[in-house]
C-alpha cells in the first residue's frame, strides 16, 4: 500500500519536473479568441488549433490555417480521447481542454509560416529538428524585404497558407474564369458579372458545349473578350468574387447558356433564342 503511494508521489514529482522547463520559459500564454471554430473556418485561431492538435499527435497534416477534413478528424479524435462531446467543433470546453493539455509556441509557428518554411509542431521534439531547411529559396528573399520589422511573432499575425476552394475547382480555374468575366463584363453591375460566370458554368454542364471551363472560354467565336484579347486584362476583386458566387450555386440568369449585348450584337441568329431577361447591358437567353 505504502509502496503504491510512493510510486504515485514519485510519478507526480517527475511530472512536475518535466513540466518545469516549459513553464519557466517566460512565454506568455497564448490562447484562442472566444469564437467557436468549425469546419471551413480559416485564420489565426485555426493555426493555433492545428498546432495544438499536432503537439498532441492528433494532427499530422500541414499547419495551414484552414479547417479542412484532416483537422476535423483530428479534433474529433481529441474530443473522443478526452471524453468530450464529439461534435468536431472547437467550443469553449474543447479549447480549455486543449490549452491545458498542449503547448503552443506562437512565435515559432508564426515565424515559420511567414518564412514559408515547411515545419511541424509536435510535442517532445526539439523545434530545430522540425523545420525543413533548404526549401525556401523563393520565400527567403521575400522575408528579407518584408520580414525585418516584424520579427519574433509580435508583429502582424501570420496569414493562413491555404485557402478554401469550392469542390471541383482550383484557384487557377477561378482565376481563368475571373479573367473571362472581367474581359466580358467589367462595366456591368455585380449581378451582371455573376451572371456571365453562371453562363460559363451552365455551358460546361450543357451537352452542346465543351465540358471544361477552359474549353468553354476558349471555344472559337464564343466570347468577344477572348477573340480580341481583353481576357488578358488583370481581373479586379469583384470579378473573382462573382466567380466564387457562381461556383457556389448563384445563378441570376435562370440557367441561361447565351447572352448578348443588343447594341453590338452582329448576328441575327442570337435574336431568335428564347430570351429570359436582361441584366445590365446583356440579354440572357436559352
Amino acid at each position: 500500500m505504502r509502496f503504491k503511494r510512493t510510486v504515485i508521489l514519485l510519478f507526480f514529482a517527475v511530472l512536475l519536473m518535466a513540466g518545469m522547463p516549459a513553464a519557466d520559459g517566460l512565454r506568455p500564454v497564448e490562447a484562442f479568441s472566444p469564437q467557436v471554430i468549425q469546419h471551413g473556418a480559416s485564420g489565426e485561431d485555426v493555426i493555433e488549433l492545428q498546432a495544438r492538435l499536432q503537439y498532441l499527435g492528433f494532427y499530422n497534416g500541414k499547419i495551414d490555417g484552414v479547417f479542412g477534413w484532416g483537422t476535423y478528424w483530428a479534433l474529433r479524435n481529441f474530443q473522443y480521447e478526452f471524453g468530450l462531446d464529439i461534435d468536431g467543433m472547437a467550443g469553449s470546453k474543447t479549447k480549455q481542454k486543449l490549452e491545458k493539455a498542449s503547448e503552443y509556441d506562437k512565435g515559432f509557428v508564426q515565424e515559420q509560416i511567414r518564412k514559408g518554411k515547411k515545419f511541424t509542431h509536435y510535442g517532445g521534439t526539439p523545434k530545430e529538428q522540425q523545420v525543413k531547411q533548404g526549401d525556401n529559396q523563393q520565400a527567403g528573399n521575400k522575408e528579407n524585404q518584408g520580414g525585418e520589422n516584424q520579427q519574433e511573432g509580435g508583429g502582424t499575425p501570420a496569414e493562413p497558407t491555404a485557402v478554401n476552394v469550392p469542390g471541383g475547382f482550383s484557384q487557377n480555374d477561378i482565376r481563368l474564369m475571373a479573367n473571362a468575366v472581367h474581359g466580358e463584363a467589367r462595366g456591368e453591375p455585380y449581378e451582371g458579372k455573376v451572371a456571365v460566370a453562371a453562363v460559363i458554368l451552365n455551358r460546361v454542364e450543357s451537352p452542346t458545349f465543351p465540358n471544361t471551363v477552359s474549353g468553354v472560354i476558349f471555344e472559337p467565336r464564343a466570347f468577344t473578350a477572348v477573340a480580341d484579347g481583353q481576357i488578358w486584362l488583370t481581373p479586379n476583386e469583384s470579378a473573382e468574387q462573382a466567380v466564387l458566387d457562381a461556383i457556389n450555386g448563384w445563378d441570376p440568369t435562370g440557367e441561361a447558356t447565351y447572352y448578348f449585348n443588343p447594341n453590338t450584337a452582329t448576328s441575327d441568329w442570337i435574336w431568335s433564342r428564347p430570351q429570359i431577361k436582361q441584366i445590365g447591358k446583356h440579354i440572357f437567353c436559352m
Partner: protein
Amino acid sequence: MIRWILVAVLAVAVGATGIWGYQEHQEKNAILVQAENTYQRSFHDLSYHMDLLHDQIGTTLAMNTKERLSPQLADIWRLTSEAHNDVGQLPLALLPFNKTEEFLSDIGDFSYNTAIRDLEKDPLTDGEVNNLESLYETSGEIRDELRKVQHLVLENNLRWMDVQLALATNDKQADNTIIDGFETVEKTVEGYSEGNLGISMTGTSNKKHEYQFLTGENINEKQALKKAQKLFEVENVSDIKITKSGDGAKVATYSASFHKDGRDGYMDMSVKGGHPLSLIINREVKDSGISLNEGMQKAEDYLKSLEMEDMELFQSSQYNNVGVYNFLYTQGDVRMYPDSVQVKVALDNGDILGFTSRDYYMNHQERDLPEPELTVEEAKDKVNQNVKIQENRLAVMENDSGEEVLTHEFLGVLGNDTYRIFINALNGAEEKVEKLQDAEAKFDDAV
C-alpha cells in the same frame, strides 16, 4: 501640271499602302490572338484534366464493387487520352513535359487493362492497389507542378505564341502547325462526355427538374416589390427596379434590383407563391468581426424567417471575410441532398449577402420513404475495407441515372483523404463515391 498629278497619285499610293499595311497588321494580330487562344485552351484543359485525373484515381482507391470500378477505370483511361492530346497541342520545347507524357501512357495502360477485365472473377490484386496508390501520388505531384506553371502563366500573362514564334524563326513551316493545332484541338473535345463536373454537392441535383413543387398563389408586381423591399432591407420602394422574366425562362420570375449607398442587390422571385429563388447583395466587406460559427446562426435565423423548417447545415466555408453555408432539408433524420439551399453571410456584421434556393424549389416535397432493407452493418460491409468509416446516416441522393434513392451515407478516411460514400439502402449498390475537397495551398507570388 503633270508634276501635281504625279504628286497626287503618289500621295494616294502612299495612303493606300498605309491603309493596306494597317489592315494587314490588324489581320495578323487577330490571327495571333486566335492561335494564342488555342494554345491557352489546350494548356488550361490539360491542367484541368490532370486535376480531374488525380481526383478520379483517388476515388478509385475508395471504391469497392466492380459496377463502380470498371466505369471509373474506363473514365481514367479516357482522361489520360484527353490529357495526352492536350500535351500534343502545345509547343513544349521550353517546359519539362516528357515526364507527364510517360506517366500518362503508364496510367492509360494500367486503367485500360483493369477496366476491360472481369473484376468479379479477377479482382484488383494488392500489387495493383499499390500501383494505383503510387499513380495517385505521382498524379498529385504533376498536378501541383502544372498548377504552378498555370499560376505563372495567368499571373504574368505569359504567351504561348512567344514560345511558338521563337521556334518559328528557325522553322518556316511553323505556320501550318498553328492551323493544324487549331483543328485538332477542336476535335479532341468532340465525342467525349465528361463524367461529372464534380461540383461537390453544390447544386446536388444534376438533372434539371421542372419547378413542380412551387406552392402558393401567383403574386402581382406590387406584392413582389413589397417582398423585395423587405428582403433587400431598403427604405424606399422607388429605389427598386422590377421586371418580369421573358419567354425563355423555365419558371416565371420577377427580377428586382437596386443600387444605393454602395450596396447593390439583385433578386429573382417566383411569380407563383413569391418565393425568393436567388438573392445577391454586394457591398464591401471589411475585416471579419464574427466567426464562421456565429455567421451560421445568422444563416439559420434567416432560413427560419423565410419559413424554411428542418434545414440542417452540412457544409460551411470561409472565403476571406465571407461565410458560405450549405443547408439540406431533413425529413425525420434523413438528409435530402436534392433539397439544398445556400446562404452567404458577411462576417463583418452578420448581414445576409446571398441566398439561393433553386435546387430546393425544384426538388422539395414530402417524400414517402421506404424502410431500409439493409442495416447499417450490412451496408458497411459493402464499403471498401481500407476506408475507415467515421460517420454514418441515412440520406436521399440522386444517383447517376437521376433517380432519387434512399442510401446509407458514410464519411470515411483513407490515407489523408476523406470520402463520402453512398450505399443504396434497398439493394446495397454502391451509388456514389466522392473524394471531398480540402483546402488548396496558396501560391508564393515571389518568383
